[in-house]
Structures are given as structure tokens and as C-alpha cells.
């Protein structure tokens, strides 16, 4: 046997193979995490960007957009008090979701009381003056037959329906990048 010859015993082979598999495994976990974070960022970002600003009252504009909160483990239960009319996906920080220890659940929550009206619309019984436009100081009647009507926006449902698109785009960006 020459000096530059190495013998790989069955145990050594298993150990080398394990190291290779572990490296691939870590790479796969890293890729999966990047794809999930990119998907989440774009889906949550689209929901936030599609949320109405409320242009009738500049003092409260952006309350609904600012009301979205991202948490892991459990849903957020408070009110953020943020008013961010120009909030976009760029400022979102998505934590690691997939690690060697497992995966985390991530939540996007909005507890502003009228979030359901923005998503699903609704009527208001017997509005008295209409809606005050604080920019002009005038009350604007936006009602039909004495009943105020707010049309749905569907910012959550329509973006959740595109989950497959967000995932495909993220996978293409991360895995081909």
C-alpha cells in the first residue's frame, strides 16, 4: 500500500455519506425557508397594499393599513395604533419559517373594528348626516334610500386565492437565482 492511498471502511463511507446528505439537507431547508419567506412577503404585502387608505379623514388615513400585524405562533390580539397610508411590502420583515427544528406558523392579523366592512362591505341603518369629508369640511351622503352602503374590497380573499401564483413566483426567483 502506498502512502497516498486511503482506505474507506464501511463506517467511514457511512459517515462521509451522512455528511453529504446533511449538507444537502441544510441547503434544502435554506431554500425552502427562502421560498416560504418570499411567498409570505408577497402575499401579505399584496393584502396590505390593497387595503383601503380612508381618504376622507387625513387625521386617520392609513389606520387600516397600519393595523396589519405579522406574528408567529399565534395571532396578534391588540391594536397597533399605526397610521401608515403608504405602507408596502418593502418594509415587511418576515422571520425564518423553516429551520432544522421544524416550521413555524405565521399570522397576518388586523383587529381594527371596521376591517370586516372593508373586506365584505355592509350597510348602516339610518345614517344621519352622511360621511364628513375633513378635507372639504362637508358631509357627503353616500347612501341609497337612506341606507349608507360601503362596497367590499376583498383584499384578503383575492390575494389568498392567488397563493399558488405567489409560491410559483417565489420558487422561480429563489431556486433559479
Amino acid at each position, binding site marked *: 500500500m502506498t502512502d497516498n492511498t486511503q482506505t474507506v471502511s464501511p463506517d467511514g463511507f457511512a459517515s462521509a455519506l451522512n455528511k453529504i446528505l446533511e449538507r444537502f439537507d441544510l441547503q434544502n431547508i435554506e431554500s425552502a425557508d427562502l421560498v416560504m419567506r418570499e411567498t409570505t412577503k408577497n402575499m401579505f404585502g399584496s393584502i396590505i397594499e390593497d387595503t383601503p387608505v380612508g381618504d376622507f379623514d387625513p387625521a386617520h388615513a392609513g389606520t387600516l393599513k397600519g393595523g396589519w400585524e405579522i406574528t408567529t405562533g399565534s395571532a396578534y390580539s391588540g391594536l397597533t395604533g399605526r397610521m401608515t397610508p403608504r405602507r408596502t411590502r418593502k418594509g415587511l420583515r418576515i422571520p425564518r419559517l423553516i429551520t432544522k427544528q421544524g416550521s413555524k406558523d405565521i399570522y397576518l392579523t388586523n383587529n381594527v373594528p371596521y376591517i*370586516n*366592512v372593508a373586506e*365584505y*362591505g*355592509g*350597510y*348602516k*341603518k*339610518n345614517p344621519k348626516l352622511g360621511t364628513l369629508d375633513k378635507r372639504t369640511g362637508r358631509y357627503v351622503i353616500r347612501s*341609497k*334610500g*337612506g*341606507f*349608507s352602503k360601503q*362596497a*367590499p*374590497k*376583498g383584499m384578503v*380573499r*383575492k390575494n389568498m*386565492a*392567488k397563493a399558488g*401564483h405567489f409560491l410559483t413566483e417565489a420558487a422561480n426567483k429563489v431556486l433559479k437565482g
Partner: protein
Amino acid sequence: MSFLNVAKQFAKSVDDLALGITVVQENDDFTPAGQWAEMTMLSHDFDSLGKSGAGDEQSGICQISLFDAATGTLQGSLLGIADAINAGFRHGAEFSDFTDTVFIQRVTRNAGRVSGGFYQIDLSIYWTSYTDR
């Protein structure tokens, strides 16, 4: 299929269900009373299926909101109407009364709630259609 034809298709299909309550379309001028349903077409998405191929795939949500002016009473009546709508728009149902076919993906409903003095349940009908170019 055009925006108009999809909306017309849903209006006809809901009308065919004979729900027994007033059904109004978006931006309709009417005075709410008793129980009624309002239909709204939420925004559509388009996916091109090729430069010169079959055309575009459209998908969207038709929201049917069920209202009851009598809050504080049992929800069973509205749920019965919700069941009828759900049965009429099951996954795989197809409607083609106006030019092209509208394919139904699924129906979901949110939790009932009192909003602005009315009890309200919303149904979301997810649909797909194709446009030939």
C-alpha cells in the same frame, strides 16, 4: 368572457335558484327591508395562456351578502338560503348561458355578524373562465 357576461351569468344563475328574497346587484338603488341578498363582483385576475394560444384565464370572486334587518333573532333562515346557494354553486359546476363557460371552484362563507344594525353573512364564490382571442 367579458366582465359583463360573467356578471350576467351569476345574476341569472342566482335568479334560477329562486331564493325567495330580493336579490340586488352592485350599485342598485333599493331600500333594504326584511331579508335580502346583494351580489358584488370582486376584482378579476388575468393570466395569459400564450401569445396566440387559447387566450386568457380569468378568475375572480362573486360575493353574495345575505342581510337580515331583524337582528337578535335566529340565524337559521339565512343559513338555509346560504345552503341553497352553496348547493347551486358546487365545485365543478359550469354555467354557459352567455358565450363562454364559467367554472365554479368553491364556495366559502364567513362567520355571521351584526354590521351597521343588520345581521350579515357573506358567501364567496370562486370562479374561473377563459377568453378566446
